[in-house]
């Protein structure tokens, strides 16, 4: 599906990271963990072809990303950026319909079918009540949900999400993680970044740990996210506990100072 081979990434001449090998297949959730400034967003932008690769390559269904036109890339992989404010007060449904652009001809406007798909995506995330509200007037969490809805309306088999839970309240975090899991079960390939190891434990089929632009480890959540590694990367000591229900949680030790 979406794979990076020996990928070096950065802005212009400045290298942010290198030697990254990643792959995500249908029905998989790949969770990228790493501290602030470790290069998660830059890596994602390179994997989406928004930044040129400095080394190695990204392939989409085996095709080198660099050889595909933008519309072909957008039909195969959708991007959920971190929630932002728009410059102009588009309605939420207009914002979501923009996800249909890759399926439209260059001179076409969205049809009734496209609008129905946008409405359905809004309903999936439980924000259909906001359809006609201005995107600039809703909260950061609602914007994040709208951006996820836009990615759903894009109907790409893979979705890359940059910290989709960062600006959400507790309830919406659970809602979005549950939706991510459901999307993977329905056959999508999903890559997301997060700051919360618990989120990786709850939705990820695989975890990749990024530190200073290099992949530290990759594999099943319980194998990658060990207390030692988390301490090495984040500088705080944590315990990993398995609950009786089978869930794994990460419990920080608030008594220690940063190493």
């Amino acid at each position, binding site marked *: 599906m979406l794979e990076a081979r020996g990928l070096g990434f950065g802005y212009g001449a400045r290298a942010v990271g290198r030697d990254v090998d990643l792959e995500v297949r249908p029905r998989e959730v790949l969770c990228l963990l790493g501290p602030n400034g470790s290069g998660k967003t830059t890596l994602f932008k390179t994997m989406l072809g928004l930044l040129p690769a400095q080394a190695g390559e990204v392939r989409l269904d085996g095709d080198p990303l660099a050889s595909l036109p933008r519309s072909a890339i957008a039909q195969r992989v959708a991007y959920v950026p971190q929630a932002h404010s728009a410059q102009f007060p588009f*309605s939420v449904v207009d914002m979501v319909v923009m996800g249909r652009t890759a399926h439209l001809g260059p001179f076409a406007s969205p049809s009734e079918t496209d609008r129905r798909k946008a409405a359905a995506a809004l309903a999936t995330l439980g924000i259909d009540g906001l359809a006609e509200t201005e995107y600039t007037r809703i909260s950061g969490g609602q914007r994040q949900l709208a951006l996820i809805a836009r990615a759903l309306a894009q109907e790409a088999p893979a979705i890359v999400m940059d910290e989709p839970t960062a600006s959400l309240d507790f309830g919406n975090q659970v809602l979005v993680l549950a939706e991510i899991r459901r999307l993977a079960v329905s056959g999508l390939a999903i890559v997301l970044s997060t700051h919360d190891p618990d989120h990786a434990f709850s939705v990820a089929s695989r975890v990749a740990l990024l530190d200073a632009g290099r992949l530290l480890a990759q594999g099943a959540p319980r194998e990658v996210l060990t207390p030692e590694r988390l301490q090495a990367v984040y500088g705080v000591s944590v315990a990993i506990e398995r609950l009786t229900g089978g869930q794994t949680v990460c419990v920080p030790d608030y008594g220690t100072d940063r190493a």
Partner: protein
Amino acid sequence: MRETALRNAAATRAGRRLGVIGGLAAVLALTLLGALLVGAYPISLADALAAFARRLSGAPAQGQIETVLFDVRLPRVLAAALGGAALAAAGAAYQTLFRNPLVSPDILGVSTGAGLGAVLGIFLSLPVAGIQLIAFAAGLATVGLVYGIASVVHGREPILVLVLAGVVVGSLAGAAISLLKILADPYDQLPAITFWLLGSLAATRGAEVWAALPLVLLGLVPLVALRWRINVLSLGDEEARALGVEAGRLRLAVIGAATLMTASVVAISGVIGWVGLVIPHIARMAVGPSFDRLLPTAMLLGASYLLLVDTLARTMARIEVPLGILTAMIGAPFFLWLLAKGREGWS
């Protein structure tokens, strides 16, 4: 249930927007008619209708009414409507493209460049058509130069580089204009230069309108055809590309179209400020930011507005008031009022 309610709400909104556009079209038609009748030589509605009927039926003209109506007023009225529509369309496109509601069509230097061309033409004592041609070419060349510089300077923010290049080239052209003003004949050329730089339609003839019209329409075609993608581009380069839009190419097409429209109008009217800045703003408040609705609304509004201002310019005083002075005197306070009222309509 919910879906029907949603669809009804959307339908009501769509209806209201259609109403706005229809209403503006009616206002424009009335303004056109009014502008044809008033002036130093007032014409009654009946006389005007009779004159039009005679012209359409091919009957011989009956004196002064026809001369005033068809040779003087009609070209001027059409030029004002065309100019207002073109400047507002270019402004709407640029504001969406640069993701900034404070941008006007001359952000990339088209007006300053055209101004330099015209001033040079006046300085060299070229005929009127020559001045217009050189103004048009210099406007296009200036934006071409700005775009060229921005493409050579590779930055992380292509839009910022474009705007900065526009500012730099624009101030260079401004300096060249000042130099020519100092060198110009103060009794003959300098007043003409000053008048041109403030914009006026006083000398507009039919042939000029017919020359500018196809160029404006040519610029309008890509804006209409690409209206949806222009919306997507307002999310920023990166997001637009992630949604499947070739942002760089689309931006070039929009800049080319808006520049062509602006340059063709500025060449016959001189530099008219504020229309391309304020009118898209008001249009956005009326119908929202979506470009497919913004474009026709801004064009209708811009046409009526410049027509009204030009009619004022030739009737309010015994001398002709330059358009640029009036559009600034109306536009600037209005813009301040918009600012004070809150940022509704843009963020």
